[in-house]
């Protein structure tokens, strides 16, 4: 079998997910040996930005017309488009909702000079193009990335867990921060894959991997309210990583 042609691209983001690829120090030379990497601008100068691709990994959020153009172009060129990282999958931190509008923020930051920049409301990739596989995480987990590469080399798409962080948290037998310590933990509605890293360090889950399918956000809100958290705290925590979770909407249902 010929090596799959692969592109690794970043839209607007912290480059953490591309860095996770580079952080596979032990496997990196095997990975690049098994793939025909056509573009990886964070690590490689030579880049073919016109060729057709078998697989493209895209990191980051769409926050400006330039990002969207690039994304559309990648979609046209690639057989499989894989969103890597919570920014690409859910919108991530740039899509964090708060009381300011995009224009207001731009004004605040740049003053009148801000008018020269075009920005759009930050959105995940799936708001613009079909995404064939989503690997979420802020940043993505190395194991999931390697698993994905192995499956893709086999011609298959990896099957990533759909259950919640709590499941992994309990599998590791960590003390429950929500139930036993009354902390604001988003583990029950956040998708697993991190092996409950934060609870393992005694830190509540802040939801960096995005929600599980069918997340019961309204019940989570009820639970947190019962624990005595204010509406502002709950709201803030819920809208940190995911553009589509709007607690206000959920609350009004």
């Amino acid at each position: 079998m010929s090596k799959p042609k692969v592109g690794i691209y970043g839209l607007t983001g912290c480059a953490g997910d591309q860095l996770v690829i580079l952080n596979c120090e032990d496997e990196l030379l095997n990975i690049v040996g098994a793939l025909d990497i056509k573009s990886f601008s964070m690590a490689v100068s030579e880049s073919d930005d016109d060729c057709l691709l078998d697989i493209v990994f895209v990191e980051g959020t769409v926050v400006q017309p330039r990002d969207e153009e690039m994304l559309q172009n990648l979609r046209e060129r690639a057989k499989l488009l894989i969103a890597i990282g919570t920014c690409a999958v859910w919108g991530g931190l740039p899509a964090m909702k708060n009381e300011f509008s995009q224009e207001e923020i731009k004004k605040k930051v740049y003053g009148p000079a801000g008018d020269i920049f075009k920005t759009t409301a930050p959105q995940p990739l799936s708001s613009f193009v079909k995404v064939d596989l989503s690997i979420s995480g802020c940043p993505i987990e190395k194991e999931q990335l390697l698993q994905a590469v192995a499956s893709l080399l086999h011609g298959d798409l990896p099957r990533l867990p759909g259950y919640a962080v709590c499941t992994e948290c309990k599998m590791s037998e960590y003390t429950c921060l929500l139930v036993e310590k009354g902390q604001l933990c988003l583990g029950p509605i956040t998708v697993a894959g991190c092996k409950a890293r934060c609870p393992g360090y005694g830190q509540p889950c802040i939801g960096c991997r995005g929600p599980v399918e069918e997340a019961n956000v309204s019940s989570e809100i009820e639970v947190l309210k019962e624990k005595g958290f204010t509406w502002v705290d709950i709201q803030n925590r819920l809208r940190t990583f995911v553009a589509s979770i709007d607690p206000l909407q959920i609350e009004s249902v």
Partner: protein
Amino acid sequence: MSKHENCSDCQNPYTPHPARIIRILPQIPDHQLFQIHIRFEDQGKVFTYRPGQFVMLSVIGVGEAPFSISSSPTHEGIIELCVRRIGHVTDALFRLPPKAMVGIRGPYGNGFPVEKLEGNNLLLVAGGLGMAPLRSLLWYTLDNRSKFKDVILMYGAKNPGDMLFKYELLSLLDRTDVKCLLTIDKKDESAIWKAHVGVVTTLFDFVDIDPNDTYAAVCGPEVMFKFVLDELLKRNFAKDRILMSLERNMHCGVGKCGHCMIGYKYTCLDGPIFTYWDAINLPEMV
């Protein structure tokens, strides 16, 4: 103590046996019939099974899935699986090169109670991929023809292009020892189709069955079950003379993983063949 004392003697039920795909016969789009030869490392053992049983098939690196055995145990040495391409494992199966190795465990499940069926009329009602397990029973009865009274097959597909085992079944039309009724849901202008048109239940008008010495075996999509059952009940079939093959999510095939549990029955151990009476007593059923 209730530990298992002699575990060193137990066979690990989870490790597949190596098997080789010896032929692939394309059926209709996204459906292929795989002929598979199973090699047992410990020689001398033959792979025997009953119609209606299934195997767990593994494709290396992708996973495992259950498939009904589509061939008749009267044909020794190989098994045939009729597979629809729908997800990870089936997709990988379709990508395999010719003569590839796969893993097989089984046979599992109860299968059809053929001894009980002997001496009776048999009415087989299939829709779509439901033909896969019923084909095993069909050929089993035809190969043991003297043990059964009348054998009737009703099989419906959406259109002629969706009919599994079409030529094999068309060839049965000439036989006198089996009544083969084929139908398609809607007539497609372009296709040549001389047989019946209409949903599978409309075929009941062409047969006259005595429910008292007949067993019905039904297999097909959920929607079909309901209508066929109505028809059978209308004809006074006893609920325990209606046999059906059920599909559930399965991860082990041996009654451990829990996925196929319906109420307190394991589809993989107690099924996949259930009588209608059994099924009524299970929650979440038809």
